[in-house]
């Protein structure tokens, strides 16, 4: 990991409330799919904010973020003239799956799963990317290239399957579910549903967890999740954010 001031290359609205921030990332630390960074807000709020890498290629990296509060609204006004303090890459990324990967993205989980999908496609793993959203306005235009099969599920049916991601998989991809591995990032209830799906079909499931963070480097023990390990709590920032779903105590 490294902390550096990075030049903003672009910062565009790509869907309702979602921005893609592209920045210069010249460093010997190459981010892997599932790893994240923290951005320092300009002025207030105080604490750095964690975001997952959504792409990395040729000294350029990006994140996709949703404007939810003070910091993210502040980031939305960044322009090419600005530079930002970035600390990363942080945490562990996704492990390479042993079976065909089914990547599930909900809400702000889109960024890391896009990165993962492109990386896996380049490795010839034929990933299926399932994107869940409330309605079609939250789904950006995607340019994923060859090798990724994209499936969309919206709660209101305005695009793709009508219903949530797990319902979608059970209805339309039941045959694949028996012989695949799930990798997912999104809201807690979605992750829990993915875990339950994995138990039902007896398949592996990697989940990317989210917790409030302070240091994001493993020093403060503020960001823990409850696990089935002997040392009950594990740090999302350092031991994760990606865990095997069976390690997590789901509540």
């Amino acid at each position, binding site marked *: 990991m490294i*902390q550096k001031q990075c030049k903003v290359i672009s910062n565009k609205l790509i869907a309702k409330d979602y921005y893609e921030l592209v920045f210069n990332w010249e460093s010997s630390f190459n981010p892997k799919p599932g790893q994240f960074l923290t951005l320092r807000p300009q002025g*207030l709020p*105080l604490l750095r904010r964690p975001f997952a890498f959504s792409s990395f290629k040729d000294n350029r990296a990006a994140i996709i973020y949703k404007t939810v509060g003070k910091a993210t609204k502040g980031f939305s006004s960044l322009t090419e003239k600005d530079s930002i303090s970035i600390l990363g890459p942080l945490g562990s990324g996704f492990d390479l799956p042993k079976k065909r990967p089914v990547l599930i993205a909900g809400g702000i989980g889109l960024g890391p799963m896009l990165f993962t999908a492109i990386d896996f496609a380049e490795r010839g793993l034929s990933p299926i990317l399932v994107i869940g959203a409330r309605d079609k306005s939250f789904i950006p235009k995607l340019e994923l290239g060859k090798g990724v099969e994209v499936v969309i599920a919206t709660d209101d049916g305005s695009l793709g399957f009508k219903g949530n991601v797990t319902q979608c998989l059970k209805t339309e991809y039941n045959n694949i579910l028996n012989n695949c591995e799930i990798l997912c990032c999104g809201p807690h209830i979605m992750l829990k549903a993915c875990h339950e799906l994995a138990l039902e079909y007896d398949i592996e499931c990697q989940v990317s967890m989210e*917790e*409030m963070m*302070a240091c994001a480097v493993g*020093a403060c023990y*503020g960001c823990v999740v409850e696990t089935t390990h002997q040392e009950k*709590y594990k740090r999302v920032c350092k031991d994760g954010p990606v865990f095997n779903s069976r390690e997590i105590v789901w509540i």
Partner: protein
Amino acid sequence: MDLSVKIRDKIMQNPVGTASGTFGFGEEYGELIDLSQLGSIYTKAVTVLPREGNPLPRLTETPYGMINSIGLANTGVKGFLENKVPFLNTIKNCAVIVNVAGSTEDEYTKVIDMIDSVDSVWGYEINISCPNVKCGGLAFGTDPVQVERLTKEIRKRTNKPVIMKLTPNVTDITTVATACEIGGADAVSCINTVMGMKIDINKKKPAIYQKTGGLSGPAIKPVGVAAVYRVSKKISIPVIGLGGIMNWEDAVEYFLAGASAIQIGTANFIDPNTPIDVLDGIKRYMTNNKLEKISDFHSFIE
């Protein structure tokens, strides 16, 4: 220019340290900054037995600060000896000070007995002030009689520097500081976090599991500066100042208030380079103001 700080019979190369609980045992931040430039590192609290810490959520942000209730999560003294000491042994020039916590006198002294022979342990900071442990910590830190007795017990067991860490959550911090001095402490650090609470008005619930926790960051700086000022006027052992130091200007304020050294806590989270930047800023200020040594700061404010 002489930046060194003497505590008991030992010298820290400079007055800038990193505060307990905000810097782990140095490994993580060691990837980001050169630890050998620091004056001191105060470790995460070490207790006799492993502690899993408090349930979550443990953190929340507040205006100009944050509230934590980590609950002294640590691997216990055995885990410290096995897993942390090998790394601490590799740190050059910088004083490694082990933050010790417990809920009975016995728990504190056991930790000291078990680690006193480790050469890379420069000294101890005794946490008698953690607001996040129900049964012990805070009770110790608020009662001068108990503080004096605990300090004496610890003093008997070690020749290394003993620094007592004071809580601001008391009626008069100077009486506790005096108890530390009488008990034989070599220095005091002030302040630990200030008790705080945040409530989510939509959920109508406290923002952290423990309901109340420790407030840190710029919000508490004036509380820390006042504590350092009052304590340093009252006792003659060195006072180590902390609470909300974000930059060198804040550090200078603490020195002018009477601090002989300072610690950077929450600011590490925001900019890991803060300790190094603060040290550079202190040097520039001393040059520009023709100050030769840290004690020169102490002559300005009556």
